[in-house]
Every structure is written in structure tokens, then in C-alpha cells.
């Protein structure tokens, strides 16, 4: 009986020793563990959020991602916050892009203003920049910031250094830009019609 116990113990020890020193098994275990963690992570809403965020391009096609974002919204209030922020931003970008597409082009000073006294006579909105001219002389040009408007008449506002350009589309079906100069109070507010 004693012999049997000793043999059993030897076999057990040898098995134990063999199992702990096998590197393949150890790696396999770690790999399984990582796979499992990864699977958990992939199912995590934050991972899903980032994977949608990576697909955004800043263009109008981003609107296709809005439903994916909506599907993510759930019980996690932090994720919900991120999701609604992205949906709002995409909607805002789409509006901005639409306003930009509408207003890119050349605008000329309305005839009721006196060209001689006017600060500017022509505005060109092209790509990401605005150019303001007095006759053919360039007064100012720079990249601009386009801000959406909640005003029913004003579609957006371009901020260009000291100038504020209001983009208006409601007048006699003509597109119109009105200029304000932060550096001059009570100066004549000039209006420009878009040329065809």
C-alpha cells in the first residue's frame, strides 16, 4: 500500500511539474484571456462609439452615421452625452456645408449704396476664404469661420477679422450679404447681391 501511495505521488508530482513548465499552455491561456477581454471591450459602448467616430469624414455623408449613433444610446449617461453631441455636431456641419454651398460665389454692392463712399464694392466667397474688394483693390482676405444662425432670416454669419457678414436668403429670392464692421459704429451697413 505504501508503495502504491509513493508511486501515485510521484506520478502526480511529475504531471504537475510537466504542466507548469509547458510554455505553450501558458501562452495559450494568456491568449484566451486577451481574446476574452477584447471581446468584452468590443461589446463595450465606448468602443462602439469610437469605431463610429473614426468613420466620420466631416462631409454630408456623415449623416449616414447618425442612426448608428442613435442605436448606441442607452442606459449609460456618459455615452448618451457623447452620442447626442456627435449627432448635434453632424447636423450642424451639414447645415454649415449647405449654407456654404449656397453662398460661395461673387456678390456685388447693391445699387442703392453710393460706391464712392462705400467701404467695399465686391465680395467673393471661395473655398475656405472670403475676399472683400473696393473696386478692384483687395481690402481684406482671410480664411473664415461660418456660424449657423437660429434667426429665420439670417442663414449664417461669417466672421472675418473685424467684419461680420450676414448671409441672407429671404429677400426677393436673391441671396444677399450684409456687412457690419466691428471697427466702425454707425457706418453704413452695406448690402451685396449674389451675381448669377
Amino acid at each position, binding site marked *: 500500500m505504501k508503495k502504491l501511495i509513493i508511486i501515485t505521488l510521484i506520478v502526480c508530482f511529475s504531471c504537475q511539474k510537466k504542466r507548469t513548465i509547458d510554455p505553450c499552455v501558458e501562452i495559450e491561456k494568456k491568449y484566451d484571456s486577451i481574446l476574452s477581454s477584447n471581446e468584452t471591450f468590443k461589446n463595450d459602448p465606448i468602443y462602439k462609439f469610437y469605431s463610429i467616430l473614426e468613420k466620420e469624414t466631416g462631409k454630408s455623408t456623415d449623416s449616414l452615421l447618425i442612426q448608428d449613433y442613435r442605436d448606441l444610446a442607452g442606459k449609460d449617461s456618459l455615452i448618451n452625452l457623447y452620442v447626442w453631441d456627435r449627432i448635434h455636431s453632424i447636423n450642424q456641419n451639414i447645415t454649415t456645408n449647405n449654407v456654404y454651398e449656397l453662398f460661395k460665389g461673387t456678390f456685388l454692392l447693391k445699387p442703392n449704396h453710393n460706391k464712392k463712399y462705400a467701404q467695399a464694392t465686391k465680395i467673393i466667397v471661395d473655398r475656405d476664404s472670403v475676399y472683400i474688394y473696393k473696386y478692384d483693390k483687395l481690402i481684406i482676405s482671410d480664411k473664415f469661420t461660418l456660424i449657423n444662425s437660429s434667426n429665420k432670416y439670417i442663414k449664417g454669419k461669417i466672421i472675418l477679422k473685424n467684419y461680420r457678414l450676414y448671409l441672407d436668403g429671404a429677400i426677393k429670392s436673391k441671396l*444677399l450679404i450684409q456687412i457690419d464692421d466691428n471697427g466702425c459704429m454707425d*457706418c453704413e451697413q452695406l448690402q451685396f447681391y449674389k451675381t448669377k
Partner: protein
Amino acid sequence: MNDNASSSETEESGLTPSYNVASYNFTAQQYWDIYSYLVVEGGCSEEAKDFIEEILNSDPDDNDIVDYELEIFVEITETVAFQEQTCLKAIKDDIVATEKISKLIKKFEPTSPVLHLEWGMFSNTNWGNTGNTGLNANQDTAFINLNSQSLTHVSNIVMVQTIAHEIIHAELYRKLKELVDDYHIISLEEYTELQDNFLGIADFTLRYGNREYTQNIMGDIISWGLYPDLTLAHHNQMAAFYRDTLIDVMKAYDLSKGTTRPNAEEFYEALSWSGLRITSDENGEISQFTDAWKNFKNQVDIDEADIPEALRTYNRYINIIINEYDNNGINCN
């Protein structure tokens, strides 16, 4: 106090007889200022006498203002074109001498000015555009320019209101520039300073400006900037809080000229709205009313619902304004 009274008081106070104060073209207010500085506050001290001597020795044709408190000459620059408009200049000088405006004007020329002030003229056939106030590119000088073509159309009181209106624009610019480096964009630190010092300016600048900021994923603000829209901010603030100043200046001017108005309260109240009803040009197709005017008009429509619209208070005000604009031109005779 009349001129004779001032002259005799200065002789009594020990002023050297060789200084014939009466030969200077001082206004009654200036005589009073000299007297009160020398006798009442200065106690006829040698320092006070020396300062008065300096004033009397200065070129009487200069348009400098004397700040008795700081004991300095305040140099206000005027272009030749402005000085040639003698009637307009006389109106301006009378306004600058009024209590409220003189306090504002003095702030433009302390020992280290935030903003200089210059007076000039411009010409625009749109004579309804009576004046404007601008800043130079360095943002260290404000220019108040008045339309020479308005002078043959509008009445004196319109130019009084215009000048006071433009001085308030300059004052709002000056306060902003006290704390803000570049008024095109205001940083968070500058905005906080504005809130601490000029809450009204901070409020209206934010309300009518555009705030741009970025946040990290934790919600911390990474960048913050306020792009002001000063035409909207100034006119809305002036309409809400500065109309009493405009009324006081018009009343003080009329009082100094012995002018009395029928329905005076309504007359001044009406004219105080001039230039403050609409922030865009009246010739333009877009009329953006100031919030203060919209609120006033809405309230009148409720209070006077039983009166035909043409007779309601705001339309009476507009008629008074039109009448004073479409007038015979300024007259100093």
C-alpha cells in the same frame, strides 16, 4: 453764474490784474471751473495760482479741456475740416461741457490713455447717416466723424443727440479696450475681467456675440474665444441703459440756449430712440430692431390696443424723429 460775476471773483481771489480773464473766450462753465478750482478747492494757494496762470497763458484758440482734478490740459484733437464747421464745433463744445459728457470725455486723455479721441468730418449723400465712431487699426484712437451733408438738413438737437450717441460709442470702446487686447476676439481671462469690472459690457458682448470653444473628452475646456458683434452689442446696450444720458444732454443743451419744447418729455424721449431702434441701415432691406425697441413697441401695442396704430406712442416718436431730421439744417445764430 454770468461772465461779470466770474471776473470779479477772480480779481478778489488775488489773481494778478494783468490777466484779464474777460478777454478770453471762456464759456460760463469754464469761468465757474476756474473759480471753483482756485478759490473753493485750491484755497488760493500758490500752486493753484500757477496752474491758473498756465491756463491763461495758453493759446486761447486751442480746444483743450482743462482737467482741474488732475491739473492737466486735456488735448482733444480736431481735424481742420471739423474746426471749419464752426456751428457744429460750437454745438460739440457745448455738449462736451455738459456734466455727464464732460466726465466721459475726460477719461480719454488721462496721463496714460487707453484710447485717444479725435473729431473729424466725412461726407455721404445719405444725410440721414449723421455720424459714426471708428477705431484705427492699432485700436488706440477712436474717431468721431460727423456727416457734413447732414448739416444742411437736420436740426441742432439731432446733432446734439448724434454727438452724445457717438461719444457713448467711444466710451463703450474705451471701456472694452481697458481690459481687452484685441476686440476682434476676447479670451476667457479677458471676459472674466470684463464681468468683474464692466458687467453691462460683458453681458451685451456675450449676448450678441459668438462663443467658440473646444472641450476634451472629460469636458474640460481646451480653448475659448468670444467673437463680439459690436454693432448689436453697443446699440442694444445703449437703447437699454444710456437713453437717460442722451435725454439729459439734450435737455442741458436746450436749457443753455433757452429753448423750450412743447410736450418736452415726449420730445426728448422720442429723440433718445433715434439711431437705437434699428441696428441695420434703414435703406437696407433687412431691418433688425434692437431688443429694447421691440419690447417697448410690444408693450405699447398692449397698452394702447384701443388706439389706432398710427397714433400709438412709437409712431408719434417716429414722426418727431423724422420732423427733426428733415429740417432746415443746423443754425447757431
